[in-house]
């Protein structure tokens, strides 16, 4: 009897996990470009991010299909089953995070090449974006290392993003009566909202880490019943 039975299946599962989590790297690249496009009001770079989202969607479709095939052909149970179920969730979150980058990039041309930008607002958005990138990196590592504590820490990191989001809102209210500036501020609020959701997606991935490890699913934070 071989030392490890079903070696090929296990290799396939490990490879699919790496591919799925690799999607988080693609999101981080897209998010980095998105932040750069916001900072420089770079409409061309924003368009590139929109076009490049096909790669993230492609990763989603490819790995999703392969996981379904594994389910159909290998009858996974126990940890393997939980892992596959989690990866399907993770993929959905990755796809959503890619879409949020697209959402931000689509509003950049609305405000034109030389918008009446407010430096403080841009700084808040960039800080939010960098914090969201940190969450994505941490979510990936927590999943790879099956580290529940690290996954739970995502909630603390996400609170920083939520606070910055509220700061953006307050600042937008204070930006005066200039119509162009108010319109620009509105587009930035949309961007802030997209970044806030991206960070939430990273927390969702953290919840899947806990599910893979413990077999129990629970939300780290319940938005409808905040503690």
């Amino acid at each position: 009897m071989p030392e490890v039975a079903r070696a090929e299946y296990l290799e396939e599962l490990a490879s699919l996990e790496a591919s799925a989590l690799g999607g988080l790297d693609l999101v981080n690249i897209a998010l980095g470009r998105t932040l750069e496009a916001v900072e420089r009001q770079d409409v061309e770079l924003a368009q590139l991010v929109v076009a490049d989202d096909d790669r993230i969607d492609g990763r989603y479709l490819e790995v999703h299909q392969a996981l379904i095939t594994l389910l159909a052909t290998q009858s996974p149970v126990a940890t393997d089953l939980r892992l596959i179920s989690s990866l399907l969730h993770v993929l959905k979150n990755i796809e959503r995070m890619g879409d949020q980058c697209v959402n931000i990039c689509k509003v950049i041309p609305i405000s034109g090449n030389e918008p009446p930008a407010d430096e403080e607002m841009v700084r808040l958005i960039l800080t939010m974006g960098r914090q969201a990138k940190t969450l994505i990196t941490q979510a990936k590592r927590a999943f790879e290392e099956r580290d529940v504590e690290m996954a739970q820490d995502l909630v603390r990191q996400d609170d920083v993003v939520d606070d910055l989001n509220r700061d953006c809102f307050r600042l937008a209210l204070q930006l005066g009566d200039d119509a162009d500036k108010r319109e620009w501020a509105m587009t930035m609020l949309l961007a802030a909202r997209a970044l806030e959701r991206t960070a939430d997606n990273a927390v969702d991935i953290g919840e899947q880490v806990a599910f893979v490890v413990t077999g129990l699913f629970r939300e780290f934070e319940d938005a409808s019943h905040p503690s």
Partner: protein
Amino acid sequence: MLGAATKRSEPQGKKGGGEMAESRPATATTTEPAAVSGRRAKTIETRGVDLFYGDFQAVEAVTMTIEPNKVTALIGSSGCGKTTFLRSLNRMHELTPGARVQGEVTLDGEDVYGSRVDPVAVRRLIGMVFQQPNPFPTMSIYDNVAAGLNLNAKKASKTQRDGVVERSLRGAHLWEEVKDRLDKPGGSLSGGQQQRLCIARAIAVEPEVLLMDEPCSALDPVATLAVEDLIGELKSRYTIVIVTHNMQQAARASDVTAFFNLDATGKPGHLVEMGPTEEMFTNPNQKETEDYVSGRFG
């Protein structure tokens, strides 16, 4: 008392089967499908059961509670003692020369191995369905079902027997397929039908518990699913224990799963873990169980 040997000498009648048999009629005359009305079946408990073939210990210290009206699956790699354990529950193990049992097996608190207990009465209360369908091949379908009845209730009238045969065949989901050829030999049926005929034969004597030793391993997938559906219905009336090598069958067809394993070849098998099937297949407590149900070894 569990079919005490002393009672066997009594005149045949309603007391013939002992106290347990008195809880329901010795023969049924209705044509009601067995699975329609739920009833509380009986609980089997084992405490520290050790099983031997001569000097060889096949099973060690199994303590478990097999709950009524549930399907309990025994899984584990070949040689881990699950079939031996199953056979000890209705005293079939002792039919093998040199085989012996230590520990305690009770049916609703009554000792199955009590000194005054008649093993034949035990086997009537705790029926067995085997891996290979084993109808009496030349005996008619009708007589196959009535066989156990004839042995256990000799005074049943023709009308009563007709009722039991129909009820049992309906209970085994076979009636509609065979009702027009009850006089044909049991061997003329397909494999899946033969297995359902054996189940009909087992339930004809109104047991409390049905033991099934890989009942689908000789059947094709369609017949397997038919038998699994049947098992799901039979649990409303019986306590069911099934040994299976088919992990998906255990996952599909059972409510509770018990995993047996052995540390090495030649060592006795033991119970590693037992729990709700859903948990055993999604989040087992023991790594040994996880490895087995995931197909990592065995």
